[in-house]
């Protein structure tokens, strides 16, 4: 845990941060708004005392109430992983600036996040679906996308629909719930 990094980040980014930097194990976490993504990441990448040149991962997260985009960065100037969370994206129209101007290699990671969550990366010039077919219309990793055999929501803990031997009409009313939540 690199305490000095947290202090440096708080001093450098000040009010752009949503709350103080959090640290656990070998990870430092800062939270920012979508509007600050480009400035913050450019500073993290370019400034010699930060020099986070390696983008290890870009992930989308649907918390159920909002969308997030999470960046994991590595730098030789610290022993910690840095996690930057761009939070507070609306679930109806999540938009965040692209970081392809710093890392062109983020293009496919952003495409994947768009494909799975529907998050629009403004400035990514190739934001198409990457895994799902082009005429697909949903975003599968959103929390309101249920799997047909979602065990968590099926009647009876852990028993999948396909494994149920009796049809619902055999059971007394109220014993088996037919529909998912």
């Amino acid at each position, binding site marked *: 845990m690199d305490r000095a990094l947290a202090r440096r980040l708080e001093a450098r980014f000040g009010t752009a941060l949503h709350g103080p930097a959090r640290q656990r194990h070998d990870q430092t976490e800062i939270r920012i708004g979508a509007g600050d993504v480009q400035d913050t990441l450019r500073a993290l990448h370019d400034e010699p005392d930060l020099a986070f040149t390696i983008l290890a991962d870009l992930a989308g997260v649907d918390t159920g109430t909002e969308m997030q985009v*999470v960046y994991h960065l*590595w730098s030789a100037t610290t022993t910690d992983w840095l*996690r930057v969370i761009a939070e507070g994206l609306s679930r109806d129209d999540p938009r965040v600036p692209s970081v392809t101007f710093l*890392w062109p290699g983020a293009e496919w990671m952003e495409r*994947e996040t768009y494909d799975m969550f529907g998050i629009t990366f403004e400035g990514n010039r*190739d934001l198409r679906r*990457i*895994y799902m077919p082009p005429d697909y219309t949903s975003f599968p*990793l959103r929390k309101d996308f249920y*799997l047909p055999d979602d065990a968590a929501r099926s009647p009876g803990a852990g028993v999948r629909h396909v494994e149920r031997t009796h049809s619902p009409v055999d059971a007394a009313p109220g014993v088996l719930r037919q529909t998912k939540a």
Partner: protein
Amino acid sequence: MATVTPPRTGDAPPRTFPKGTHPSEDDPNVLLEDDYAFYEPIPPYPPRTEREAEFYTLGDGEMFLNMGPQHPSTHGVLRVVLKLDGERVVDIDPVLGYLHRGVEKLVENADYHQTISQVDPLEYISSLFCEWAPVEAYERLLDVEVPRRAEYIRVLSGELNRIASHSLFLGWFALDLGGLTPILWSFIERDEIVEMLAALTGQRMLFNYFRIGGVNGDLNHEFMSRLGDWMSRAVVQIEAGEGLLNENEIFTRRASGLGVVDQATALRLCMTGANLRATGIPFDLRRAHPYSIYPELDFDIPTRTEGDSLARYLLRMEEIKQSLRIIDQCLEKMPDGPIMAKLPRLIRPRPGRAWAAVEGPRGIYGAYAISDGTDQPFRLKIHDPSFIHLQAVGALLPGNLLADTMAIMASLDPVMGGVDK
């Protein structure tokens, strides 16, 4: 002749090219019938992005060539649309998704232990690393200390897996350059390793071996005797396989200067692993961000400066030798003790977030896990280096010959199971 285009749904209209609109219309070398019922690489819907519009517009003298998904040398089910100017590649557009299983969604809908068998088939030739990253992320969520013997066994089996993967790379790479013998030789090596890992884990490829808090089984007699037997002749065998290529002038001259990438570009393309180290940046998580017991072991991080296909190949051969050193030290220092931490069977980590990354044969394998306090992960993002390196092919390829497409792709060593997740 009727069109055979199947009806499509959503915003993609059926593919039609009214007379005079087909991109190859004016090309005297291309014979077009009135109804284009044959296969065309051009997508049957209007371009969705600026980049797609640019790619699917042909310049003077250019043509499209569709490669895959069933091409024998694409290392899996991958389709690449190549834009060619004669023999030169102008641009490529890889089309992914043929192996997409939605593993992240499957993981969210199963309990924590079930993740391990789900992530195994991602990179099916280095499965232990696919297991390692999520398992380590979960251990951080749980704040659990892994017993030292388990860590040593993880490193031992992981390095064996790395050697198996690299020797398979040797064979594939040579095969894509037109040499058939090395793949037969490298499979000897790989088979011995997967057989000994089978003795340890019970499976040849999809090991399902790491557990949250340790490993599934202790070292056994069969594994140790196979390993000892193999270690006594590993160096000789590997050097013999290498000698087939290193001393082959056709191979070295063909591979050198092919797909060159410089340091700044490699970093901007998010490349990691041997592909990044071949440009001269000594970024290896085993040293750059030490995890497990790697700080206690003595080994080097080889780098090269050329950044071409030959450098990437030679670097991987160097790494095999470093892995052998690590295995030697693991066997020497192997401590006694338990192989599993004490954990309840049904685990419910406290709400939180954790990221873990390990250095695999292709680069960093990462996992970002979020717990909401239930017995199922709320989210698991899996970062796979093959995905990144396949993207880099698009930056390395333009200007090279068509015949070099597969050579450059093979030198970056992507595995389609990992690319498509």
